[in-house]
């Protein structure tokens, strides 16, 4: 199918104003939120913006006929290249499917289209006394469909869990163009948990066209504590002590001195400029509980060396303390023209050692690294500051980033806590997974998308899929015939 015909056919499905095909219009779809140069890209043939599930299914059918890959995309805020096309093809942008279809107060659920923006869902459900718990830092722009694809987290997943814990059911267009529902309002559905498999599958198994999400009741009371420490070690120690005391805060965030240097002059959140690190701790729940737990946490922090503890109960005060954390990335421009935001996880007890290693790497590679992260769940976000106009700077950043990942894996961590693998980290998959582990993942991929048409070249190491999947198939065939080779 030549490109003109393809575009005509796409226009016939979604309308003339919902297909982009001029190079200038396509350019932006070659990018997501990842750092330039860290992620490969290839210009898509066209971008289609459907408004209904049937249109999505029709586009998928068309792509199938044309033999073109399909890449689903939300707001493009991803940080691992998940929505960036690798082999061209058709991009299905879901941003026009942005309706909240139903809010069910009694069942505590919402039925939404994938293009609904994360924060807007919480704002819409607030009058009913609910919010959507996953709150990635990009929540003002990112979409629910993207959250599902990436299994997004956010500061509050310490208490409330990640996206998968809040998805009850999905309407999905499969790679063969069929539309199915997985999961649903009722518990106890039969068969494999396809909903669970789809969440976090980075658009490689199906395209979500509706999501039935769980809503969380807004807490009776919320309190935010700010505790500055002389150094990262004592702040980490305080974190462990809080957890050991049997307290699970709603959020427990840490920022180091370099971050404070960038953030405080920008937002005047009140972080002491001379602090080695600050902890930002949020607790929520029943009013009395929140008060007594707050006192307990404050005492632990002081004992662990906090120079003071500020407690904010009023909404405006709390928001100011949070502002510095939520807007931290935006403030980094004060320190350097570019940053590379890393995302790895280590067991909480390995945080102090990992941060020390990050400091060494910063020194070795002559890269300033700011640390702003989810201390409560061991999810690190080292921010490497650089100027990409300096020859070799991007390469140095990627090298340093490899050092950090390698260390995190060595101490029992994971490649990514909330950003996903995409193309950014596919090369590292073999650091944590054996060929057999990857073959199991390929088995899942193959069950949904045997022809590899949805979001190709993601998650699996370069050149992996075809050969390995074939080997797996041959193994399966051999077994069926009773020829077993171990």
């Amino acid at each position: 199918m030549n490109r003109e015909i393809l575009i005509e056919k796409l226009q016939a499905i979604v309308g003339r104003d919902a297909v982009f095909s001029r190079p200038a219009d396509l350019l932006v779809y070659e990018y997501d939120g990842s750092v330039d140069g860290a992620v490969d890209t290839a210009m898509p043939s066209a971008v289609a913006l459907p408004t209904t599930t049937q249109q999505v299914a029709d586009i998928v059918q068309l792509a199938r006929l044309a033999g073109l890959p399909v890449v689903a995309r939300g707001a493009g805020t991803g940080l691992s290249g998940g929505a960036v096309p690798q082999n061209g093809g058709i991009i299905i942008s879901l941003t026009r499917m942005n309706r909240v279809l139903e809010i069910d107060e009694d069942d505590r659920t919402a039925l939404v289209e994938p293009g609904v923006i994360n924060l807007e869902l919480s704002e819409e459900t607030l009058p009913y006394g609910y919010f959507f718990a996953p709150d990635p830092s990009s929540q003002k722009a990112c979409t629910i469909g993207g959250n599902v694809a990436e299994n997004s987290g956010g500061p509050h997943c310490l208490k409330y869990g990640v996206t998968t814990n809040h998805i009850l059911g999905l309407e999905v267009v499969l790679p063969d163009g069929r539309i199915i529902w997985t999961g649903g309002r009722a518990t106890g559905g039969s068969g494999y948990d396809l909903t669970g498999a789809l969440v976090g599958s980075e658009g490689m198994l199906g395209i979500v066209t509706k999501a039935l999400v769980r809503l969380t009741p807004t807490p009776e009371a919320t309190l935010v504590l700010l505790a500055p420490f002389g150094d990262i070690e004592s702040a980490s120690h305080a974190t462990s002590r809080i957890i050991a005391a049997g307290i699970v805060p709603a959020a427990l965030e840490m920022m180091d001195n370099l971050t404070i240097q960038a953030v405080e002059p920008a937002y005047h959140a009140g972080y002491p400029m001379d602090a080695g690190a600050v902890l930002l701790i949020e607790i929520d729940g029943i009013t009395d509980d929140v008060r007594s737990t707050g006192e307990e946490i404050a005492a632990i922090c002081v004992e662990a060396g906090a120079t003071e503890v500020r407690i904010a109960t009023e909404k405006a005060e709390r928001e100011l303390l949070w502002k510095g954390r939520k807007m931290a990335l935006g403030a980094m421009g004060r320190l350097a023209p570019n940053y590379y935001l890393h995302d790895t996880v280590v067991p909480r007890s390995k945080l102090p050692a990992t941060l020390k290693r990050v400091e060494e790497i910063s020194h070795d590679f002559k890269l300033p690294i700011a640390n702003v992260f989810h201390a409560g769940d061991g999810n690190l976000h080292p921010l490497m500051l650089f100027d990409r106009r300096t020859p070799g700077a991007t390469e140095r950043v990627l090298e340093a980033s490899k050092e950090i990942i390698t260390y995190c894996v060595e101490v029992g961590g994971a490649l990514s806590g909330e950003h996903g693998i995409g193309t950014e980290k596919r090369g590292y998959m073999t650091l944590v997974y054996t060929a057999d582990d990857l073959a199991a993942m390929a088995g899942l991929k193959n069950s949904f998308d045997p022809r590899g048409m949805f979001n190709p070249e993601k998650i699996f190491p370069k050149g992996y899929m075809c050969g390995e999947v074939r080997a797996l198939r041959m193994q399966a065939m051999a077994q069926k015939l009773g020829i077993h080779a171990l």
Partner: protein
Amino acid sequence: MPSNGHHPVTDTLTIDGYSASDVQTPGDAFECALMLAEASSLGRAVTPVGGGTALDLGNLPERVDLMISTAGLSGIIDYEPTDLVLSVGAGARFGDVQAVLAEHGQRLPLDPPGGPDATIGGLIATARSGPLRYSAGTLRDLLIGISVAHPSGTVTKAGGMVVKNVSGYDMPRLYLGSLGTLGIITSANFKVLPRPRAEATILTRHETADAAFAFASRLHVAREPMAALEVVQREGDWSVAVRIEGRDQTVEMVRQRISAEAPSDFSSLDSEASATWWADFVSLYRPQDPKTSVLVRCGVRPKDTATLALGIIAAMANAGVTVPYLAASPGTGGVLAELSFGANGSAQTMAEAQSLLLELADAATIVAAPPPWKRGIDIWGRLPDGFDVMESLRQQFDPSRTINPGRFAGFL
């Protein structure tokens, strides 16, 4: 080499009347994979066995040639209390795991049927949950890593020992509830939580079903911070059980608030008595007369729970079936009921009852039934959407249908 071990549980076990001539007890995951591969190449059917508390769950097996017991895969592999994570062998008893966690003031917030004798692997394979689901969710929300032995002879792992992890597909949730049909779970990692500092239970008795559901609904809508909320019918008597957990002062405050709302006929249990009451309640998830009774689990959207519960009782009465026991969870839409067929019980009457249930509920699973009645019946209820994807999954992971052939949804 695979060793033929003897295990006190498996020696006496049957699966719907089938007993295996051979029981093997692998000492580690790789040995388990070898046993599976050998069985696969010989065309033998394998049923994995843990604590033997949920062997009734599943369609009639096509064959059982070999049982593989996870008894040799027990023990805590790694537990770091300050990290709130735990790695444990699939054969570990749930009760033993909770005891170890309790020493550090922590727990898995779960109260599954099967109780302390269920194994970790069995709980994952059958995705069981209990009344605590109301506040704490299920195993699905706690599982962070897994290792699985496959009929291809390989052992794979996924996830890890961290609570947030998006490194590749979320395989642990695929294996959860798969009844071993994608592989035998050999170990699992969980996020654990602090134990609540106090708990209490309020039990209320009501004249009618409507009154019981109205009371439960009032508490749910008022968003009382309850750990569990169950409406129970025993031999026609209706009661509501509310579990409260948390810090001492909160538990006391909520207890007083709910007591004030409760009808005059209520009792209140404090910490130990409360815990014991719920442990007993969960263990009653078994048919009273297994020869003529069937245990079913139905699901519906939460707000239709009362309609479903009353609908089941009415529909069964019409069909000449009594419902001596029913437990409904109004917050989650689950209803567990014992259907007593008496002398009229047969494969046909059970099948008719199942179709009635499927008209009332979105999901209806026959959890336990007399084996002869199960012939030809898919106890899992209606075929799920996307079943062909499930067929390919089975084909990808266990092409020779070595593990539990026929027992899973759609006779996979």
